[in-house]
């Protein structure tokens, strides 16, 4: 990038600043609202900042009534288990499909590829019945089960990494008498860390934010964070400044994670595109 004229550089800052305003402006009234009192909310414009930035009443109320802490905990449990299972299965399937020639390999690979044609939303009429018969509806394992399947994007990410790990490495270990399990566990897996990070980031964000599946399978007893936030919102009796506070609290966890992992997230997301 050598020949950036002055005009171009000015244009860049103007456009990027405008783009940031486009992102931030819709969020600002939500932030204001979360700190306003009930009367302030109904008497002031959404564009007016709250009088008292230290008014945490709405937040306390939201946490207590919405059971947000419990819901966040549930989401954490679901994410931890399903992401672990998914990562395990994805690396296993990818390793076998990438390194071994065996009868049926092509068919199995094709079966995984073709899932990209089957959107989740088009199968739930039947999947719900299956999960229902397993007795898992309204219980956490339902969502965990649905989240832990292997998807083709994951396989592509892993293949990309496996391409860069020489097969001679596996073979020499085999000659030294290591079992396949051992080769996979102590040689291949450690070398696949970057691909695993990418997969964890993509699906971690996706599952953390997912509303469709938990809303369908966890209607009673247990709720995830997104479903708990939604309950708030669907309840018209809740004053809207409380809803705003709850939603603002909903933004906090993902922003904290983002600030700590920004570099990895950006790398992971663009990396996935490349593969």
């Amino acid at each position, binding site marked *: 990038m050598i*020949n950036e004229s002055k005009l171009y550089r000015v244009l860049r800052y103007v456009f990027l600043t405008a783009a940031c305003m486009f992102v931030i402006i819709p969020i600002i009234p939500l932030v204001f609202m979360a700190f306003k009192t009930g009367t302030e909310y109904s008497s002031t414009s959404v564009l007016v900042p709250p009088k008292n930035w230290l008014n945490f009443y709405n937040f306390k109320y939201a946490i207590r009534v919405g059971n947000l802490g419990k819901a966040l905990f549930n989401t954490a449990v679901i994410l931890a288990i399903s992401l672990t299972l998914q990562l395990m299965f994805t690396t296993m399937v990818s390793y076998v499909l990438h390194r071994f020639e065996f009868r049926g390999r092509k068919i199995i690979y094709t079966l995984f590829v073709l899932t990209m044609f089957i959107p989740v939303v088009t199968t739930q009429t039947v999947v719900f019945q299956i999960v229902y018969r397993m007795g898992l509806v309204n219980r956490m394992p339902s969502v965990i089960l649905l989240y832990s399947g292997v998807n083709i994007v994951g396989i592509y990410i892993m293949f990309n990494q496996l391409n860069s790990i020489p097969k001679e490495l596996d073979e020499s270990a085999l000659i030294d008498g290591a079992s396949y399990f051992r080769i996979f566990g102590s040689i291949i897996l450690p070398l696949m860390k970057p691909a695993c990070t990418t997969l964890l980031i993509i699906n971690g964000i996706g599952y953390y934010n997912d509303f469709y599946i938990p809303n369908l399978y966890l209607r009673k007893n247990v709720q995830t964070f997104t479903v708990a936030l939604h309950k708030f919102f669907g309840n018209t009796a809740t004053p809207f400044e409380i809803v705003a506070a709850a939603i603002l609290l909903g933004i906090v966890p993902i922003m904290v994670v983002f600030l700590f992992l920004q570099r990895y997230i950006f790398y992971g997301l663009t990396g996935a595109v490349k593969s």
Partner: protein
Amino acid sequence: MVKTKGTKLFIFIFLFIPLIHLLVFSYIPIITNIYLSFTSYNGVNPPKWVGFRNYERLFTDPQYIKLFRNCLWYMLAAIPQLVFAFILAVFVNGKFKGINFFKGVLIVPYLLNGVIISTIFIIFFNNSGTLNSILRAIGLGGLAQQWLHNLRLVNPAIASISIWRYYGLNFLMFFGGLQAIPAELYEAAAMDGCTKFKEIRYISIPSIVHILFINVLLSISGSIQVFEIPYIMMNGANGTATPVIQIQQSAFAEGRVGFAAALSILVFIIVVIAVSLQRMFDKKGDISA
């Protein structure tokens, strides 16, 4: 790879659970759904064969045709969304002060969930909300509208939210594509006295045109599957229902599982067409071992 006695067992152990999962939660459901779409099935009594009756209703009843018409708004919104994302990617691709700040802010919407985004935009489109307040403040109060209650405006209004929500994903894809262009190409162009604008026109755009195409098809298949925003914001009211909202309504609230299956299959077919075109274009798609 060298074969030993344990090879087959190893392969079997590693593939068994994921394959069962694949069959039980993807293939058996979609095949069952094709069958159910030709039946009247309420989820309890045994399915009864009705031929193409479910599909006939979908293609003739205006209330169901409207579901797909609503999706067109989301496809339309994808055009400014892609243009915006592309320009962003071009500007961010380079070295300049504040790049990390801009990248950080610009990716925020992509990280937020549907409930949060719905709340933000209810505040945005409300009668005394952000948009109308801004319009009034800058003297354009005449344009202020009941955005979510005006039956003509509600669909374009909520479809436009998808620009805000999803441009980040397109931006990342374009950005990834631009980063993959070899630096020598730019250097050679610079030596020939190429300006930045010519460089974008003759190097950047042609190099990522296939990513643009993939993004267009992703938007089409995404538009047909829209669910969260109209469901959470409007509960599908005021004529904002989409095929997926209707699937959920028919299958789980009204017990018309056969009909919901037919609607699912229709969505499925549209996605199959979009994804097939995308795969044909995306040569990188078939990385094989």
